[in-house]
């Protein structure tokens, strides 16, 4: 990277740190530290919700997904706007009106302490682990492309985020998120414009090439439960996942309960609904255009430089031969692409498709070789975008994009640390250890809790990075809880539901997801959220019905 790019990254890091710490002024009470005294405007909360959900992996991994797989991933978000509208008229008024610090605090008021504690414990376990993977995923990529030790990459993202979150609390998290979101959107638009300018063919031909390989197929209406991304899994499974994520996950709930009023909280969620699908489609389109760009600029056989080095050292002859065949295939694909640019006929598109299949087959062969040599999962989808950024973007824009990736990572980490600290202090420390203490004491404990979770996340990140499959495990692990936790909150809104039903319903929901996960592993994990939520509500209502009958019998006997 050019010195100017490093300066841009350094300026960004210093600015974020100073701005975040500056926000700590006036934070003397726990309500100010965790909820900004419920004084934040809806647009700032909305941008913060969006920034929290958009992690570094969205910028690195989703673009890579767009380059290799096309737009179909966008279906994953089809349920989001619907979920936001449902939450806006159901859960948000409940939680904002209840004047709670955490979503789980409300569960004790509605049911009992054990349901609150179990739900908040599940949140701490799932979020604590996922916070580590949010740091690990971009840290691994940074280490590979810059040749740094993993510790330095983790520290680059973790240390400034922990400092400003610890000192500034939710005010710092939200206002820094607003600026980070602005930077991310600017970087995405700048890269898309640059891509269109740098492509040697007209935009119409570029899209024709992408379309010929199926990369512009955004809709798949098949009813295949084993397919991760279809219109129906996105709309139904996605709605449940988003309802659970935005309605019951403290890292999201804490954003909108800081709004000035219920209507402002609802508007902030709708703002996120407004932008989410267009923004994700843009990010995926950026990946699709990177694919077209690499049709005319020869990409490497393996995008992960560390992996390529290892394979080249272990199997020089085999890799050399494969690389030579790859170069020939790339040349033939480029020639076919130019023919499409001259005349986009069915024959020229078919020829391009066939050459693209040759290139794809050689890449699969190389990845298989890398898997055998390194002994790890050799998917290099996360390295496609970094390779493009570092080799083909103009000086200055590289720095802006790297800063945007850091911003995306830091905004998610900060929100998670803040919410983990809130749940630790409010749902455990203040509930079970020190129920009565001055605000200054809780403020101190809250800062210590933020620091602890920051350290915990960094340690998890180091392990998650070395055990590649752990990231998959953690994601599947998280999907055990989301639907079930949503089910408990749905029960909370049903007047006849009782505490026993909620507690055992929650356990039954997780068990049901476990049975499906291990018994029918081919069922897409998006459906786990539906299964969990439905089981909790069904079991919860049956048990609540029995509890109601028992209470009724007791009352009759007493009379």
């Amino acid at each position, binding site marked *: 990277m050019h010195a100017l790019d490093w300066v841009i990254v350094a300026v960004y890091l210093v600015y974020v740190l100073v701005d975040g710490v500056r926000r700590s002024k006036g934070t003397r009470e726990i309500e100010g530290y965790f909820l900004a005294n419920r004084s934040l405007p809806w647009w700032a909360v909305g941008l913060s919700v969006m920034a929290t959900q958009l992690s570094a992996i969205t910028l690195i991994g989703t673009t890579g997904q767009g380059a290799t797989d096309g737009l179909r991933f966008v279906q994953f978000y089809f349920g989001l706007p619907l979920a*936001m*509208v449902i939450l806006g008229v159901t859960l948000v008024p409940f939680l904002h009106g209840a004047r709670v610090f955490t979503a789980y605090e409300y569960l004790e008021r509605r049911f009992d302490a054990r349901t609150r504690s179990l739900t908040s414990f599940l949140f701490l376990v799932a979020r604590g682990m996922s916070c580590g993977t949010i740091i690990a995923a971009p840290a691994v990529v940074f280490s590979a492309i810059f040749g740094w030790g993993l510790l330095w990459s983790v520290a680059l993202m973790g240390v400034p985020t922990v400092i400003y979150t610890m000192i500034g609390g939710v005010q710092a998290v939200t206002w820094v998120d607003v600026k980070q979101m602005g930077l991310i959107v600017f970087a995405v638009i700048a890269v898309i414009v640059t891509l269109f300018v740098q492509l040697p063919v007209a935009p119409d031909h570029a899209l*024709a090439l992408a*379309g010929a390989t199926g990369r512009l197929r955004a*809709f798949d209406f098949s009813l295949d439960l084993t397919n991760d991304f279809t219109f129906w899994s996105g709309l139904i499974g996605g709605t449940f996942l988003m309802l659970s994520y935005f309605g019951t996950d403290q890292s999201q709930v804490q954003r909108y309960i800081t709004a000035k*009023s219920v209507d*402002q909280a609802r508007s902030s969620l709708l703002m996120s609904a*407004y932008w989410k699908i267009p923004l994700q*489609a843009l990010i995926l389109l950026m990946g699709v255009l990177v694919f077209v760009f690499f049709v005319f600029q020869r990409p490497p056989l393996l995008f992960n430089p560390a992996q390529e080095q290892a394979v080249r050292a272990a199997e020089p002859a085999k890799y050399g031969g494969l690389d030579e065949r790859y170069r020939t295939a790339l040349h033939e694909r480029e020639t076919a692409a130019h023919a499409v640019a001259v005349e986009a006929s069915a024959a020229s598109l078919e020829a391009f498709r066939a050459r693209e299949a040759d290139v794809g087959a050689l890449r699969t062969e190389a990845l298989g070789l890398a898997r055998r040599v390194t002994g790890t999962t050799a998917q290099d989808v996360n390295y496609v975008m970094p390779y493009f950024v570092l080799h083909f973007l103009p000086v200055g824009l590289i720095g802006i994009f790297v800063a945007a990736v850091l911003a995306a990572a830091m905004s998610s980490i900060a929100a998670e640390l803040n919410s983990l600290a809130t749940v630790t202090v409010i749902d455990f420390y203040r509930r079970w250890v020190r129920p009565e203490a001055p605000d200054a004491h809780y403020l101190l404990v809250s800062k210590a809790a933020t620091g602890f979770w920051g350290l915990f996340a960094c340690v998890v990140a180091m392990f998650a990075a070395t055990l590649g499959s752990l990231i998959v495990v953690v994601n599947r692990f998280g999907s055990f809880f989301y639907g079930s936790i949503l089910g408990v909150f749905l029960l909370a809104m049903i007047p006849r539901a009782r505490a026993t039903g909620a507690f055992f319903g929650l356990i039954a929901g997780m068990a049901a997801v476990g049975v499906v996960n291990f018994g029918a592993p081919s069922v897409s994990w998006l459906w786990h959220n539906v299964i969990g939520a439905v089981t909790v509500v069904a079991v919860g209502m049956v048990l609540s019905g029995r509890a109601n009958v028992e209470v009724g019998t007791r009352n009759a006997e007493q009379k």
Partner: protein
Amino acid sequence: MSDTPAPDHASRLFRRTLLRVIAMQVATLLLLWLLQIRYTR
């Protein structure tokens, strides 16, 4: 003076934002659909 908006104003803001959300989603999905049918052959 409080800077919290009046309830009527806030409700109007919510309804207006809701309409915009629906319009934006319909427009985006339509655009993606057109992109798919125009270029996927």
